[in-house]
């Protein structure tokens, strides 16, 4: 891993061509989402194209590179800058404001878990392994809805942890009632209220290498995917962008810009990374809003 020796080298990298910028634009589907639920922006249309976690049920698969925000194929690069804005779904909508966002490297997923299979142990097929972060250190589990779901279910996940110990069992996790795919359905433990982007692991564990099985103890009325991701960078989007069309015509909006060398760790982005974003809107539904931004990376050699 070749990093940067000092700020001068960091600043000089763009002049040396070691700088890449790319646009992303993700439009949330029209099905309503719920305030304070996380959504998985990769699930929605735009550029990069939607990632529906579509492959054989319960079989491990890697997320296709084309589903991630494009970054160059460089052995070791770092997040330089992230700039993001949220376009409101209409001239009057304010529900996409104040989003908490997280950039992650999407690694592996196990699709189409049946949340109605109460009492059945749904065994996963280990047809692929983690393509990066091979030990699983720091890798977390997201439960992403792949359909609408009608009721609140509960489940546990059996997994192998970052030390290679199999048979570890997550805390009991609640699912949520959702109108469509793309919402993270895992809630805070022991209650359906609140949101937790990642499933709470067994005490002492800090990561996941693979998932062996999932067992539901109460039906959730839908389908979900268990995705393994490496969280990289927390950021936010503040005011939604819009222009009123009646009354006093006014423009609203803000851009949120994060220069990692100043505002947070310049995290490494590993070669082959599939970058995606999850977001939590606290002001209402994110339906039909658009998250747009520019992601910049840099490298030293």
């Amino acid at each position, binding site marked *: 891993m070749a990093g940067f020796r000092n700020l001068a080298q960091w*600043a000089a990298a*763009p002049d040396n*061509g070691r700088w890449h*910028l790319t*646009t992303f*634009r993700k439009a949330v589907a029209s099905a309503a989402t719920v305030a304070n639920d996380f959504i998985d922006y990769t699930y929605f249309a735009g*550029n990069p194209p939607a990632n529906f976690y579509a492959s054989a049920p319960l079989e491990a698969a890697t997320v296709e590179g084309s589903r991630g925000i494009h970054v160059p194929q460089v052995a070791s690069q770092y997040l330089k800058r992230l700039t993001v804005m949220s376009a409101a779904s209409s001239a009057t909508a304010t529900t996409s404001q104040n989003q908490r966002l997280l950039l992650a490297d999407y690694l592996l997923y196990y699709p189409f878990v049946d949340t109605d299979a109460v009492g059945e142990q749904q065994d996963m097929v280990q047809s692929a392994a983690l393509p990066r972060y091979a030990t699983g250190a720091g890798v977390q589990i997201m439960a992403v809805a792949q359909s609408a779901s009608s009721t609140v279910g509960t489940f546990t996940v059996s997994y192998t942890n970052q030390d290679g110990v199999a048979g570890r069992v997550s805390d009991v996790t609640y699912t949520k009632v959702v109108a469509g795919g793309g919402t993270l359905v895992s809630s805070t433990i022991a209650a359906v209220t609140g949101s937790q982007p990642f499933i709470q692991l067994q005490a002492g564990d800090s990561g996941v290498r693979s998932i062996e099985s999932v067992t539901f103890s109460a039906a959730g009325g839908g389908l979900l995917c268990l995705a393994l991701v490496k969280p990289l960078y927390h950021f936010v989007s503040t*005011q939604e962008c819009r*222009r009123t069309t009646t009354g006093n015509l006014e423009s609203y909006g803000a851009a949120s810009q994060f220069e990692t060398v100043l505002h947070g760790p310049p995290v490494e982005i590993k070669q082959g990374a599939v970058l995606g974003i999850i977001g939590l809107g606290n002001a209402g539904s994110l339906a039909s809003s658009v998250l747009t931004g*520019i992601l910049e990376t840099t490298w030293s050699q």
Partner: protein
Amino acid sequence: MGFTSQDDLINQITTNGKIEPVVYQKTSVAVGQAGHWQHLLNSVGSVPAATFGGSEATFTATDNTWSEGVIPIGDQTDPATKHILSMGAGVVAAAGAPWFILPIDLVGYAKLTTTNVSTTGTKTITMTPISNTAAKVDRYANGEGLRLFIASYAAMGANAPTMQVTYTNSAGTTGKVTTAGCVSTASATSGTILNSGNAANKYGPFLPLAAGDTGVKDIESVIWGGTAHASGSVFVGLCKPLCMPIPVPATGLYNMVDFVNTLPSLPRLKNGANVTFLVFGTGATTAAATVYANFDYGWGG
């Protein structure tokens, strides 16, 4: 040389008057397509609309003396190096927000028209490779840091062929190829960067270079695949992105970035630079949108 310290910067711009302001304004020639980047070279404004003269399939170098119109940035500072101190931008348009506005130094272009667009296959580009001399075309030695894009300067006909550019990288390796599978945009409006867009196999604003490449020394050819555009006129642009894109959240809003205090950057403005701007529209941006930008640059020595 640049500036030796904050004190030197203040002395150079206040005591010695080594600072120049630049103002730029364009009225977009056509609708900017949602999720696409748009160039404004052939839009009217404070820099006249370019007509892209020069010979077919032949590289035309552009610098601060380009006869078709440039922002007047002189070479009066030579040998002192110029640096951008601040930059701001805004957009006035009925629709299309939010936007990003990216300043680039356009080093040159090669245009393709008629059957070079309406037929597929390899279209050879005639170009003297960028070298490492004092000539303005060589202002980025051996093309280090330069990027490629393909853009329309007339309305495009139906169909969206695949497109790749073969090039010599800045290390002098010939036959390098941009990412396979990148598709153009069918029926694109004039001014559209065709490799960008809001779907699979679209990359914006620049064509991804081959793994490990950090610049372009020579444009060798354009390869059209699939079904050719029915008609249209395009150019391959060779440019250096200058600094972070300026985010514009909504119509009428103005954002400014301070490149002295907020970031350790002071981006270099090379002697001979032909500065122009690219615009990313989250939504479809109304034709005849007003795009304005300004920046200050200073120099030491």
